[in-house]
């Protein structure tokens, strides 16, 4: 599904965000990306989404070379990937329902399909009662859940979730983890950046640990692995 070969990424010629990354994630995997603040987790996602380009190295998504993807094909790459952004990125002028429906409009889903799917994912993240609110009228955790709902609504083949439980209480966080596991069982590859030690430890999935832009650890059924 995703393969990186020798990828380096430096911001402004001095901040070394990722260095010599070699990794392969298979279709259907559930992977935790862990590591301290500033380790390069978000940068990793940005490279896959072609929001940033690597300084060197190759990145493949579904067999295609992302680094060589022509500009006009980028939207189609992104549609195939659901993303929970760390800063949510909700459209400020659209309400919760419209924000999610919008992601379906992009892929030209039918109005009927939209009317069916949107309430469904809203219910999955427990926000049915907030459908009509604008983003600035939501609590932090609610915004985060809207972002999750939008990411999964199109049944993407890859789900990148950047800190999807950072603003959630443990109970709600586990609800969300159930949703992600369910999405994963239906065949979607899940790549989740997180700092939530308990979740990583309990889930027993593959863990890739980044540190200073390098892969420090890559374990099947791993644990969060940092001391408190």
């Amino acid at each position, binding site marked *: 599904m995703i393969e990186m070969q020798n990828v380096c990424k430096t911001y402004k010629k001095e901040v070394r965000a990722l260095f010599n990354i070699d990794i392969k994630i298979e279709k259907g995997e559930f992977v935790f990306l862990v590591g301290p603040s500033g380790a390069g987790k978000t940068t990793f996602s940005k490279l896959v989404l072609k929001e940033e380009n690597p300084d060197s190295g190759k990145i493949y998504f579904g067999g295609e070379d992302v680094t060589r993807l022509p500009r006009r094909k980028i939207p189609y790459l992104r549609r195939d990937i659901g993303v929970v952004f760390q800063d949510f990125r909700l459209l400020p002028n659209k309400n919760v329902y419209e924000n999610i429906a919008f992601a379906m409009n992009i892929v*030209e889903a039918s109005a009927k399909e939209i009317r069916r799917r949107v309430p469904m994912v809203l219910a999955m993240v427990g926000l049915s009662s907030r459908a009509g609110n604008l983003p600035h009228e939501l609590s932090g955790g609610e915004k985060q859940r809207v972002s999750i709902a939008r990411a999964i609504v199109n049944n993407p083949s890859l789900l990148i979730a950047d800190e999807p439980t950072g603003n959630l209480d443990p109970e709600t966080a586990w609800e969300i983890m159930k949703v992600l596991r369910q999405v994963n069982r239906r065949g979607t590859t899940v790549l989740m950046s997180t700092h939530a030690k308990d979740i990583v430890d309990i889930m027993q999935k593959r863990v890739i640990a980044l540190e200073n832009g390098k892969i420090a650890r890559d374990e099947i059924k791993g644990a969060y692995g940092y001391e408190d």
Partner: protein
Amino acid sequence: MKIKSLRYIVNQGFTSVWKNRTMSLASVASVTATLVVLGLIIILVLNINNMAKLAQVQFETIQVFLKDELPLEDISDIGKQIDDIDGVKSTMYESKEKALQNLINRWGEQGHLLEYLEENPLPNSYIIYLDSIEGAHGVVYELEKIAGIDDIKYYKEIVDVLIRIASFIRNIGLALILALIVITIFIIVNTIKITLNARRQEITIMKHVGATDWFIRCPLIIEGIVLGLIGALLSVAIVHYGYYHFYNMMLTRFTVMFSIYMISVEEMLSRILIMFTIIGAGVGALGSILAIRRYLRV
């Protein structure tokens, strides 16, 4: 792009005018204000131009004086020759008796002086009406070849000056209007650019969740066109009613005569309506395209 997407896109274009209504209002206000200025200038220039053209008509005549004692058939022969010249619209014969009478009338108060004359010293003449004042020199050149003509009189200097002034006004006016159209477009494009720049975050987010450039661009272009059109129609209404009242005021102030020098309210309306609609819509679209161009590169 499928039909349902099209509907969604058009829909988005309209609703976002409403959702961002503070900004929309400001854009529309700017568009309107700018076009009203353009309208004022157009009214001014077109009317001055029109007046110059009409005033000019009064000088579009040449008078040729015939040799004394010419037989009547020669006179009518000369008349036919003149009629055949290119650029001559019509001719009118003026006998020496008629000419004296005209002179007496024209002098008005002092006309009675001429009644003391011993004999009529005036010649017979033809008054020639021209197609246009610009052709005067050519016609004179042809007239000089005709036998039996004693003298040719036309308002050479006045004609020259008038031609120059008229074409000058036309050129200045046209240049002014063109410059204003460019400035107008510039202001409107700028306003819509700023309006949309304020939404770069929105545009960037759309890009990030996989919207194609056209999917983002189309609603914004429609939005720009809607804003431009609303502004254009408002300004047409303002300029139209303004001109309507100005026109009527002129009539009551300067007698009805004056109105023939002015472009009619209907003609003015039809001119600005088309022009402003095109500018408004075109410029709205252009503004949107320019504004979002660089935010699409993400």
